């Protein structure tokens, strides 16, 4: 594979399509440039979301009104939720790293519809802008929580209509990306890239894309209904005119529960790609991991009712949704066991991507097991709407998807810049984050068990100690995040050169492309002769 190491200059960076400056980016249909635009926008919104999260913790540092007060607290947690969910976690791994990596992994020059891909990014940018505009116009920042529950969302005087419209536009972006990725995986695989030779990251994106395409339209119609409710008063969710607010909850969760699989599946794909490379062993149970992605996507579409156990649904519905929820745990556990089995007798290298990936497995398992407590109707009634839910959600979403995003960042991003970060600093940053993370969210789970409700700016004094601990830990976590980003970003622009395949990966993005990859990725169409984790057959080794 020495022919690909002969790189001329800076790969796709040298080829700006005849445009210069900003135009070389915002009009580029190159999947790598689009991926990087997503990455940087997503990181910026993530940091804004982190600031809002820190503000929430600051208000909760002690009982009583501290910094924000009730109304601003409501607006802050709504924004934190909307930004983190719709602008960071949902597009995070699939839009940023999916665009950067997936076409190369399957041996394609680009995605199936490059211009549509650019349009997706524009929709993302427009949606994000509208979301920001909604904060400062009309009635001010929405205060409904990210779920926009009726009847409050149809009555509040804050700027819900615009925020909802922004999310609608963001949904478009997701649908178009999903369609694009599905078509790409079906149509543009290189010769020899059979379905059982697809890297597991691509498999997970494929499953995710189906969820995006099939679930997002339900969100779209739900948001249209809120807008209609606010603008013309159709009354479909208003009991006074015969509507039923519970129907809103059903429609909302028909999308929003599958949406958590849009968030977690690509993250699992990242982990499935990283662990074998750093354990120097072919992944254990390739087919089981690939099929479990599809199984999670399918089963996960049928469990939305577990968000509504206390809404007054019939007991029969509660039991059915609970059973289906437990079924989702099976494919999730299959993945965890396969990752652990891959590690068994591996020759493990604790490089930064691997450390982030391993902490994903631990944190996701803690969060996932907490999910079973919430999925059982009996225990759910006790912890419903408490801090246990907040803790659980952050364990799976931040400890899961967030850490996978960081793992992907440490694993793939240097490939696209040709320079890399300092490994030691990356590990220190991970240590800070890991400690801060657990001492922030574990207290939340305990507080929830003790009965502290979520979404209030105040609490009774007996919860003070653990809240103080959580707030202090939020600073440790933030310090770790800052150190991690500073180290990676400095490294990408000023760091040591990054070779073609320093991690010793066997999938095409490592074996068949230059660093940084060229425009249209390959000098000639690759012919695939082995699986993505057959390190011996690929003849690859990690650099020391």
């Amino acid at each position: 594979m020495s022919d690909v190491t002969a790189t001329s200059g800076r790969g796709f960076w040298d080829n700006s399509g005849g445009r210069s400056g900003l135009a070389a980016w915002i009009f580029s249909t190159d999947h790598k440039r689009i991926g990087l635009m997503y990455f940087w926008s997503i990181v910026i919104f993530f940091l804004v979301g982190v600031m809002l999260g820190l503000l929430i913790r600051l208000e909760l540092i002690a009982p009583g009104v501290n910094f924000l007060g009730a109304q601003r607290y409501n607006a802050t947690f709504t924004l934190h939720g909307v930004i983190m969910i719709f602008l960071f976690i949902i597009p995070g791994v699939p839009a940023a790293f999916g665009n950067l990596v997936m076409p190369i992994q399957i041996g394609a020059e680009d995605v199936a519809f490059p211009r549509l891909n650019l349009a997706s990014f524009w929709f993302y940018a427009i949606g994000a802008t509208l979301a920001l505009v909604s904060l400062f116009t009309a009635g001010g920042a929405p205060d409904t929580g990210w779920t926009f529950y009726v009847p409050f969302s149809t009555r509040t005087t804050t700027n819900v209509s615009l925020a909802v419209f922004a999310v609608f536009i963001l949904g478009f972006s997701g649908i178009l990306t999903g369609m694009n990725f599905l078509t790409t995986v079906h149509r543009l695989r290189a010769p020899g890239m059979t379905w059982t030779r697809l890297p597991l990251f691509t498999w997970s994106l494929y499953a995710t894309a189906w969820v995006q395409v099939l679930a997002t339209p339900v969100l779209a119609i739900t948001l249209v209904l809120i807008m209609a409710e606010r603008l013309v008063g159709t009354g479909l969710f208003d009991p006074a005119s015969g509507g039923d607010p519970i129907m809103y909850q059903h429609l909302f969760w028909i999308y929003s529960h599958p949406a958590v699989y849009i968030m977690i599946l690509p993250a699992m794909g990242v982990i499935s790609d990283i662990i074998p490379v750093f354990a120097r062993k072919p992944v254990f149970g390739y087919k089981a991991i690939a099929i479990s992605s599809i199984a999670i996507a399918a089963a996960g579409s049928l469990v939305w009712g577990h968000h509504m156990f206390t809404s007054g649904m019939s007991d029969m519905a509660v039991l059915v949704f609970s059973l289906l929820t437990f079924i989702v745990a099976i494919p999730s556990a299959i993945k965890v066991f396969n990752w652990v089995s891959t590690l068994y007798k591996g020759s493990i290298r604790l490089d930064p991507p691997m450390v982030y990936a391993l902490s994903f497995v631990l944190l996701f398992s803690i969060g996932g097991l907490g999910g079973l407590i919430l999925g059982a109707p009996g225990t759910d009634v006790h912890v419903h709407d408490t801090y246990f839910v907040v803790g659980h959600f952050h364990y799976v979403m931040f400890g899961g998807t967030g850490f996978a995003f960081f793992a992907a960042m440490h694993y793939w991003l240097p490939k696209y810049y040709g320079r890399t970060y300092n490994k030691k600093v990356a590990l220190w940053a991970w240590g800070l984050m890991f400690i801060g993370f657990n001492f922030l969210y574990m207290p939340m789970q305990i507080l929830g068990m003790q009965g502290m409700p979520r979404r209030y700016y105040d609490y009774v004094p007996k919860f003070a100690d653990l809240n103080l601990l959580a707030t202090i830990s939020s600073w440790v976590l933030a310090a770790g995040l800052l150190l991690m980003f500073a180290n990676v970003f400095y490294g990408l622009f000023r760091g040591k050169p990054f070779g073609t395949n320093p991690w010793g990966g066997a999938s095409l993005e490592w074996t068949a492309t230059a660093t940084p990859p060229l425009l249209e990725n390959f000098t000639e169409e690759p012919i695939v002769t082995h699986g993505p984790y057959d390190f011996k057959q690929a003849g690859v080794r990690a650099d020391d």
Partner: protein
Amino acid sequence: MTEQHKDYTGAKLGMWLFLFTELILFGGLFILYGVYLNRYPQEFITGGGELNVWFGGGNTLVLLTSSLTVAMSISALQRGNRSLCVKLLVATIAMALLFLVNKYFEWSAKIHHGIYPGAPSLQEGPPGESVFFGLYYLTTGLHGLHVLIGAGILTWVMFLVRSGKVNGDDFVTLENAGLYWHLVDLIWIFLFPLYYLVL
């Protein structure tokens, strides 16, 4: 760069996926219809009785015919008859506009009788009726919007056909526009009986 990578099957696949999303978008409204029909059968029957079958039936006829003309326009282009293709597309677009004009008169008659979302007469009546008409306006309104978008797309494709960019060898854009138009038609085929006939 994108021109040299024409992939007929890929383009069709992408379009079909998009059509799924449209079906599911309307699916949300059909779910609400099912649930509320189950809850307020009597009010739905009363509400459905007030809809004018002639307007609905006329529009069904118009849309079905327009589906025929768009399908014929594709065949015409495949056989190399560009001017016939353009004529058939113009006919399709004209029927789309006729549909909307028809809808306009139907809606304004209803609104004239004080039946519109949030109308006082509805709010005083039984709750189920206001839900029925809320759904009726939302569903037919969203469908009308799709008719408008479809007409826009067909107009755009018609210009592409006229300029020769879409032609007998490369007609997937026209075919996809036709698919979209059939979808708009198909949704109406379900809307019409649900609101005008079965109640």
